[in-house]
Structures are given as structure tokens and as C-alpha cells.
């Protein structure tokens, strides 16, 4: 490691709590988001959407005289639907039409697009479009999607399943040794991601470059470019994607949308700028669906709490289509590979089904499958602990992978790189004061408010690359991540990266990394990102990969640039370039120094002063980066929460919340805290509030934020974050991906705390969100059981 040793803490480089460079514009309301873009002559788009979940589309009739204001599938010549196949054996392929053809498969599927000077006028026009349907029964329940009586969504399939997977590693042998067997049915609700800003696109045809420029609120501009070029039948050179400031993504903004393809086609067709700004109703009911899992999980344990084997059948409600680029089976395939969590076990069996239903496609949301998996595994572990009369911390201690075993290859061949999981547990137990809490819980055990304590512990694979993803065969496999570092003539530094920063604070943290290599003040570093015209190709911002991959690439490019600066500086200082040190904006050798600004000016404007052996590639370097091994960094965390459950109201109050988190080397601890807190708030939403229900006709029942409940500031307790810092041996500075971690642990920890509170009553909750209604139903069902017993 090149950063300063602990006795002289760095102020601007790796490890510095540097204030975020992007905050000045955000806090003053000066960000430029997709809806802030106004182009001359721009038209607004509004979509006519299906009112039915499953129906044959008999006809779509445009209003008379609509001319070039209304378009249907018949108009979209040369446009292909969206297809994202997995290479896994048995995957059934779907094509998501840009505008519906012949059939609609979920409520809100676009049938036609209307254009007008304003969105309101476009919606007026949309009301005049008439469509005829022949309704079909809807597949609304993922547990019944495979019934042979159910209608087929995709009629060339033989069942409503995108993909079925099965894995069995020594299951029978391990399970046979079990002293206890505990089985549960567990479920997580369908959710919406709900970034503050929804999706949006402004498309314009550039006549000079003969290029379609698509401004899109996206977190993966290069992948959107590839997807758009494919759907529109264009060369990549004819498509440029630009992400402006983006107000949160969480996975939704990595997806290629039919609406984006439509906007691109319209801009070319009309030779006029067009835009679509998703509204919250579209967002909730059509766009951003995620998370819906069901687990039948059985744990096999020895009498001392040793976890011998896990058996699981998991169903993921994948919705109607396979989304580009992550496909319809990312969630379920992940379930099978990460369910064993941070624990040792001897046997493991898991079958998964990615089922097709008449709902919007399910998309990867922060944490992807991990939130559901952590919920399932940590709940079953507590159930085993209750069965064995063990403390929840004791059963975890018994089974966690230890630091002595690191690096550890687990039962699904996940390579944990480093860490001390038992220590994270120990610190969480100490911080939440388990002993003190148990005393208080005992004292207050007879009231109408019951106290409970819950734990969850998990690890998060991040920044995993080629070797992991090529096996899944989805349209996108990450390889080397590239970055460009370029010195400007005044000694400033420009960094160009293909990832996109929309809350990750990369404008700050990548500048800190460049400072490590070049000594250039982060205030003089400009990050260029989100524009395919200016940045190296990248799969983008997802999978907790940026700080490892883009960070590593920026370090590599900055190091190359630093070498070239030293060559010129050595010449100017009459010193051996090898002896030149870059610090605080200067190149120093012996007792003399020259400013980096002077070095830059020499290369660009006074070449007569350059040494003969100067590198002709100049003060601009592009480098590619991969981790030492691309199996991913494994950050991990232990969440500990105490709750009070009101038995009359079903209301859960979070009393205290502790997160012990190991992000490896922290580039900027404030940014790590921000990521963890933001994620935890979303995880609390999953645990307590967020639910996107559908009725038996496939109609979405939460179409506004009055019905879809997000956590608000007053719902989030003062979460205490304790850091551990075990460097990853795989990454440039020892940093680990941490972006999703906070969102993974809360549903498991909170549900475990509620079950701890209700255990004396013989009541267990098995489904999130734990709304008052759901908790009350569980309590009253328990009462009924007690009354009958």
C-alpha cells in the first residue's frame, strides 16, 4: 500500500474524511437532472398502457387526424424487442416488445406512444386511443405459476418458468446426521425501488454526426448504448448515451427500457427532440418492481447447534419478461449460490424457479437476491436456536467461518477473501448490550408491549468479474475496467471513467485515489463520467463494483501518468526521474521542486524544454484494471436491533440499531457511512413498510405513494455504525465493495427481533413487510391456536 502510515493520517488521499465534491451543486439545487434538460422543439411523450394483466390485443386504433403524433407497434419498422437470454441450460427466452404486439402480459405494458407540446396534452391524446382486448386469466401468484392449469404467458413455452436450477452438494449424507430439523415457509413482498428521481430520457438526432444522442437517467450508459443500438438496428457509432446528474438508481437505472428504445426511434423518425419523464404511477406500477421471493427452507443441525445442511426450494416471481441486461434469472440463480451465507456447512441442496407471471419484470434492487436470502437463512437459524434453546449469538458463533480459515472457499465455491466474521458478531453483541437487554426484556415480559432482539450477519460479494458472470451467460460480462487520467495544461487532472456516479460519491473518492498516485489536490480533479462519447467502455455502476474496479483503474492510470510526470520533472530538476516524488501538487527531488502545473505547461506549450526520452504518449494515460483474482471482494456486516412490539396495534418500534461493518480499507469513511445508512433505510423499508400487492386479476394495488409506503426520516432510528477494516488482498488499496450492504441486513434482523419478542406467545412472523396488519394477523392467529389447544 502506498498511502501514509497510521501515525500520520492522510488528509486528502485514501482514508480521508473528505467532504463530498458533488455536494456543493446538489445542496444548492444546482444539479442538472434529466427533467432539467430542455431542447428547442422538444416534444413530450405519453404512453397508452394496458389496463389488463393478460389479454390478447385485438386492435389499437389511433384517433382521427392524429398524424405523426400517435404511433403503435405497426409503425416501429426496423425495431426489435428487448431480449436478454441467459446461457444457463434450460433458459426459456422471452421478447419484450417495445410496443405491444398481439398480446399484453402485464398491466401498464405500452400499447402506443403519443407526442405533444406538453405531457398533459400528450396524455389527452393518449385517452383518445382505443384498444380492443380479449381478456385471459392472469397468472398473479408465483406459487401457482407452474400449475398445468395456469395459462401460459409465452405460448411457445411448456410452463411458466424462465429457468429452473438445482444444486446438491453432499446433502443426504450431512442431513442424515442431524439431531434437529427445522422447516419454515418464508416470503418477501414485491417491492419498488423508488429512487427520488424516476427514469427519464431525452433523445435527439444529431444531423452533423449522424448520431442519436440519448440523454438518459441511467447508471449503465455503455450497456444502454449497446442495448439501444441492437434494438434500433444502428451501429454503435450512431448512438451516444449521456447520463446527466442521476437521482439514485439502485439497479432500476441499469435496465434498458422499452420507453428508451421508443424515444430513440421517435427522435430519428421525427428528426425532433423527444422526451419521456416517468411519473411516480408509472414507476410504481410498471417500472421498478423487485424482490418478490418465496422460500421453503429446512435446516439440519446437530444438538450443539452445528449447522449440518440446508435444503431449500426458492421461487422468484420474475414477472412477464426477461430484462436487459441482467435477465429474468439473476435473482434466483444468485439465491442458489449465496444462500449458505457466511457459514460453514457440510451439505447443501437448493432448487430454484424463476417463474413468469403477469406482472412487470422483476429487476435487481440494491442487494439483489441477498436481502431475501439473508432473511431466509437468518430466520431459519433463529428458529433452530429456539428449538435448541440456544442464544442467537451462540448459534451464529458456532457456525461462522473464522478468520483462521480465510481465505475460505464455501460450499457453493464462493471465495471469501478476508475478514473476521465472529469479531463483527462479538462487537455487535457488545454494542447492543445483549446481556443488559435480556434483563430488561425479562422484567417487562408481561405487558402489552413486548421487547425483542434480533441479529443478522451476512457477507456481500462485490466487484466480481469475468469468471463469475460468464458462467451465467447473460448479455453482459464485466472484464477489465478502464480509466483515463489526463493532465490539463494548467496542472489539473481529468479522470474519465465508464461507470456512472449517482450517489456513490465517485467525484470525491476517485479524486482521493488519484491524489494517492499523483499528489494532485482532489479540488483540482475533474471526473468525467456517464457519457459514452468521452469515457472508456464499462458495464457501469452495479454490483458494488465501482470503488474496487473504477478505483483500481483510476489508480493504475494515475500511476502511469505519475511516471510520465516524473520523467519530465526529473529533466527540469536535473534529477534522476526515479528519485522524483510527487506530493502536494509538486514534483520534488533532493532539495528542489517544480510544480506539476509547470510540468504540464512544459509538455503542452514549451516542448522545447522536454527531455529526449520523453514518452510521446504524453500526459494522458488509459489503463485497464482487474483485481488480483476476480471472484470478488467480500465485505460483511452484523446488524443488531432491539424492538418493541405493541400487541394491540401490531406496531413495531425500533429501539436501537447497530451495524458492525467491514468495508476493507475505507477510501472515505464518511462515504462508507452514507452508503451503509442509506442502504439500511431501504432495508428498513423492506422490513416494515414497502409492498407492491397485486390482486387476482393482476392489477397493481399501490399506484401512488399514499399506498406504497416508503420509510421516512422519522422512521429511521439513530443507527450506530462500527467499523472494522480488514483489507482485501485482492484490490488495489484493500477496499471492498460496500454499496449494497446496508440494504441486506435489516429485514432479517428486524424479523428476528420481532420473533424474539413474540416467542413467549408461541408466535412467529414469516413474511415481510411486517405491517401492523400482518403482525396483528399473526398475533390473533396465535391466539386462536392457543384458544383451540
Amino acid at each position, binding site marked *: 500500500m502506498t498511502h501514509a502510515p497510521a501515525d500520520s493520517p492522510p488528509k486528502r488521499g485514501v482514508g480521508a474524511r473528505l467532504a463530498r465534491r458533488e455536494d456543493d451543486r446538489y445542496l444548492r439545487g444546482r444539479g442538472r437532472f434529466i427533467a432539467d434538460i430542455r431542447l428547442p422543439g422538444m416534444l413530450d411523450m405519453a404512453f397508452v398502457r394496458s389496463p389488463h394483466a393478460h389479454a390478447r390485443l385485438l386492435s389499437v386504433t389511433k384517433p382521427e387526424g392524429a398524424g405523426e403524433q400517435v404511433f403503435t407497434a405497426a409503425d416501429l419498422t426496423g425495431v426489435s424487442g428487448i431480449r436478454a437470454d441467459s446461457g444457463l441450460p434450460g433458459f426459456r427466452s422471452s421478447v419484450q416488445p417495445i410496443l405491444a404486439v398481439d398480446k399484453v402480459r402485464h398491466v401498464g405494458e405500452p400499447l402506443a406512444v403519443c407526442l405533444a407540446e*406538453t*405531457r*398533459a396534452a400528450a*396524455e*389527452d391524446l393518449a*385517452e383518445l386511443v382505443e384498444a380492443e382486448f380479449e381478456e385471459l386469466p392472469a397468472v398473479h401468484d408465483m406459487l401457482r405459476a407452474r400449475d398445468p392449469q395456469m395459462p401460459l404467458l409465452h405460448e411457445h413455452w411448456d410452463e411458466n418458468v424462465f429457468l429452473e436450477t438445482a444444486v446438491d452438494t453432499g446433502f443426504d449424507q450431512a442431513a442424515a446426521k442431524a439431531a434437529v430439523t427445522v422447516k419454515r415457509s418464508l416470503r418477501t413482498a414485491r417491492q419498488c425501488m423508488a429512487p427520488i428521481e424516476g427514469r427519464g430520457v431525452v433523445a435527439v438526432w444529431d444531423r452533423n454526426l449522424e448520431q442519436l444522442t440519448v440523454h438518459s437517467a441511467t447508471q449503465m450508459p455503455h450497456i444502454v448504448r449497446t442495448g439501444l443500438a441492437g434494438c434500433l438496428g444502428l451501429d454503435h457509432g450512431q448512438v451516444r448515451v449521456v447520463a446527466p446528474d442521476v437521482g439514485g438508481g439502485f439497479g432500476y437505472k441499469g435496465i434498458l427500457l422499452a420507453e428508451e428504445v421508443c424515444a430513440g426511434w421517435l427522435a430519428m423518425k421525427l428528426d425532433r427532440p423527444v422526451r419521456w419523464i416517468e*411519473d411516480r*404511477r408509472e414507476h410504481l406500477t410498471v417500472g421498478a418492481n423487485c424482490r418478490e421471493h418465496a422460500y421453503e427452507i429446512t435446516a439440519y443441525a446437530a444438538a450443539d447447534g452445528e449447522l449440518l445442511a440446508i435444503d431449500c426450494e426458492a421461487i422468484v416471481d420474475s414477472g412477464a419478461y426477461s430484462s436487459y441486461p441482467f435477465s429474468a434469472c439473476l435473482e434466483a440463480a444468485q439465491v442458489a449460490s449465496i444462500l449458505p451465507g457466511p457459514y460453514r456447512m457440510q451439505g447443501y441442496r437448493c432448487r430454484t424457479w424463476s417463474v413468469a407471471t403477469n406482472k412487470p419484470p422483476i429487476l435487481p434492487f440494491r442487494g439483489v437476491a441477498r436481502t431475501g436470502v439473508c432473511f431466509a437463512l437468518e430466520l431459519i437459524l433463529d428458529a433452530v436456536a429456539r428449538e435448541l434453546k440456544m442464544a442467537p449469538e451462540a448459534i451464529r458463533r458456532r457456525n461462522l467461518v473464522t478468520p483462521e480459515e480465510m481465505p475460505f472457499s464455501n460450499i457453493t465455491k464462493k471465495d471469501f477473501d478476508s475478514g473476521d466474521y465472529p469479531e463483527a458478531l462479538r462487537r455487535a453483541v457488545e454494542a447492543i448490550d445483549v446481556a443488559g437487554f435480556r434483563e430488561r426484556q425479562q422484567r417487562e415480559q408481561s405487558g402489552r408491549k413486548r421487547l425483542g432482539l434480533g441479529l443478522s450477519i451476512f457477507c456481500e460479494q462485490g466487484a466480481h468479474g469475468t469468471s463469475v458472470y460468464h458462467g451465467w451467460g447473460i448479455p453482459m460480462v464485466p472484464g477489465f475496467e478502464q480509466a483515463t487520467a489526463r493532465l490539463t495544461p494548467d496542472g489539473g487532472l481529468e479522470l474519465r471513467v465508464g461507470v456512472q456516479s449517482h450517489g456513490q460519491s465517485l467525484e470525491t473518492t476517485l479524486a482521493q485515489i488519484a491524489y494517492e498516485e499523483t499528489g494532485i489536490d482532489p479540488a483540482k480533479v475533474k471526473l468525467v463520467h456517464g457519457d459514452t462519447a468521452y469515457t472508456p467502455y464499462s458495464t457501469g455502476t452495479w454490483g458494488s463494483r465501482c470503488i474496487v474496479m473504477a478505483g483500481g483503474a483510476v489508480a493504475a492510470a494515475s500511476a502511469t501518468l505519475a511516471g510520465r510526470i516524473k520523467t519530465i520533472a526529473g529533466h527540469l530538476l536535473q534529477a534522476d526521474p526515479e528519485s522524483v516524488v510527487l506530493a502536494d501538487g509538486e514534483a520534488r527531488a533532493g532539495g528542489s521542486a517544480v510544480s506539476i502545473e509547470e510540468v504540464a505547461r512544459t509538455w503542452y506549450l514549451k516542448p522545447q524544454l522536454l527531455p529526449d526520452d520523453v514518452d510521446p504518449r504524453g500526459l494522458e494515460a488509459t489503463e485497464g484494471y482487474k483485481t488480483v483474482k476476480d471472484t470478488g471482494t467480500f465485505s460483511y456486516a452484523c446488524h443488531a436491533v432491539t424492538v418493541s412490539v*405493541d400487541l*394491540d*396495534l*401490531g*406496531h413495531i418500534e425500533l429501539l436501537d440499531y447497530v451495524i458492525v461493518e467491514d468495508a476493507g480499507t475505507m477510501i472515505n469513511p464518511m462515504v462508507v457511512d452514507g452508503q451503509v445508512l442509506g442502504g439500511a433505510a431501504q432495508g428498513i423499508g423492506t422490513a416494515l*413498510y414497502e409492498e407492491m400487492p397485486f390482486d387476482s386479476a393482476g392489477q397493481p394495488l399501490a*399506484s*401512488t405513494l*399514499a399506498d406504497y*409506503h416508503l*420509510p*421516512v426520516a*422519522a*422512521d429511521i432510528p439513530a443507527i450506530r455504525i462500527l467499523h472494522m477494516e480488514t483489507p482485501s488482498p485482492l484490490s488495489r488499496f484493500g477496499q471492498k465493495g460496500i454499496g449494497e450492504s446496508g440494504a441486506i441486513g435489516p429485514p432479517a434482523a428486524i424479523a428476528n427481533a420481532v420473533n424474539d419478542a413474540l416467542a413467549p406467545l408461541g408466535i412467529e412472523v414469516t413474511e415481510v413487510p411486517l*405491517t*401492523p*396488519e400482518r403482525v*396483528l*394477523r399473526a*398475533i*390473533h392467529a396465535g*391466539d386462536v391456536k392457543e384458544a383451540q389447544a
Partner: protein
Amino acid sequence: MKPAPFDYAVAGDLSDVTSQLAQAAGDTKPVAGNQSLGPMMNLRLARPGRLIDITSLAPLRAVEDTPDFVRLGAAITHAEIEDGEVADPTSGWLRAAAAGIAYRAVRNRGTLGGSLCHADPAADWVIVMTGLCATALVAGPEGERRLALEDFITGPFKTALHAGEILTAVEVPRPGAGARWGYWKFAPQVGEFAKASATVLIDEARGRLRCAIGALGRRPLILDSAQSLIDGSLAPAEALRAALPDRASESLALHAAALQRALDLALETETPPG
């Protein structure tokens, strides 16, 4: 979504509004704070052809403070009540209720009368004004009439207003010496409508005892067993089971808990001065 096209006019005077409403046969709607109608229009679930803005009509902005009651104009905002900018005959009960409505942005624009006319069963004023034995003052083409709040609200999102009528004011009786009050609602998140709510008024000096339950998906339920509930001889769960025999047990338990907590609050409240 954006609203369908509509016309907008600012009302001149009260008779102008009532005659326009009577003539327009439902296509014209009076609007004040627009905190309920506005979102429904944006979703195109409500599509009036014309809005008449009544927020600045003098009688709707008036406050009359008398020894027996305070009359609050229908266009008084929640925030004005919360901030004590208008008289509160209950020495703080109204202010406290107003402060718990939705969140401040809604309170800044939303009005007392608008909330009552919208008649959401879970709304604060619907249950609070019923619980306080308030009276609705209504004006229409046929003149003025007075209705007890429990007669004004006739069902979920339904009122006794006839075509052409608007609510002009609400009369809140001044409680007698030693009166006690409890209002309790269960809204798990800030800004949410209540999942359960109840009020208890114990005003022996004026002969008013009232226990009312809100958020039932219907108009507020006024329990005829207030005396037994207050003296403790009848449990809330029993009273509710008798009044709502068709409800599921968890629903009854929830509303009974709300009533119990309102009773607890009432029995521990300080006597308002004067």
C-alpha cells in the same frame, strides 16, 4: 400524470358560488386547499370541468369567538389552527389535533372545511369534530342550514351537502369547566392517514359525554355506551364487539386499543382553564 383540461375561476361572493354550483350539475367543483382533489385530478380519477376557488370568500375566512362556541370559517387552514392564529375554544385540543394532520406542507394549504367535505373516514377533523359535538354550517341556493357533524358526514367520502351547497363554517362548542378530552390515533408513519382513531369527551358541566371511533371505513361510530366506558364498567373491546359484530377480531382489537388509549388520555388530561 397530469390533470385533464379544466377551467378555473375565483369566487366573487357566496351566492355567486352556490348559484354556479347549482347550475353546473356536478361538473363544477369548489376548491380550497386542493390537497385531496388535486392529487385525484392529477391521476385523472377526478375530472371536473371547472374549479371555483373559494379560499378567499369572507364568510369562509371568518372566525367568531363567543362564550358558547367558536365559529371557524371553512377555509381556515390546518396550519392556522396549529399555529394558534385563530381562536381555539378548547384551549389547545384543536391545535394539538391540527399539528398531527399529515405533514406541514399539507397543513399549510389544506383547510378545515375541505377535509370535512372530502369526508375521508380516517381523516383527523372528521373524527375530532364529531367527537367535540361540533356543528356544520351549510349555505346553498335554498338558504342556510345547520347540521350536527355526525349528520353532516353520511358515509365514507359522503356528506349531506345537496347540489349547490357548500360548507361555510364549523361551530365548535366551548367545553365547560372541568371538561376532559382524549384523541388518539394510530398512524405508524408520519403523514399517513390513521389506521385507527378514537376520541373521548367528558364534559359534565355541559352534559356532553361522547366516545367516537374513526378510521372504520365508514362515518365515525358514536358509541351509545359512553358513560359505562368512561366509568370503566364496560371494556372498549366489548363495546366495539357489540357495535361492530361483523368485524374480524384483529380489527376489533385494534380499534378497541385506540379507544382505550383515548380514554386513558382523557382521564389524565388537565382541566382547560376557563
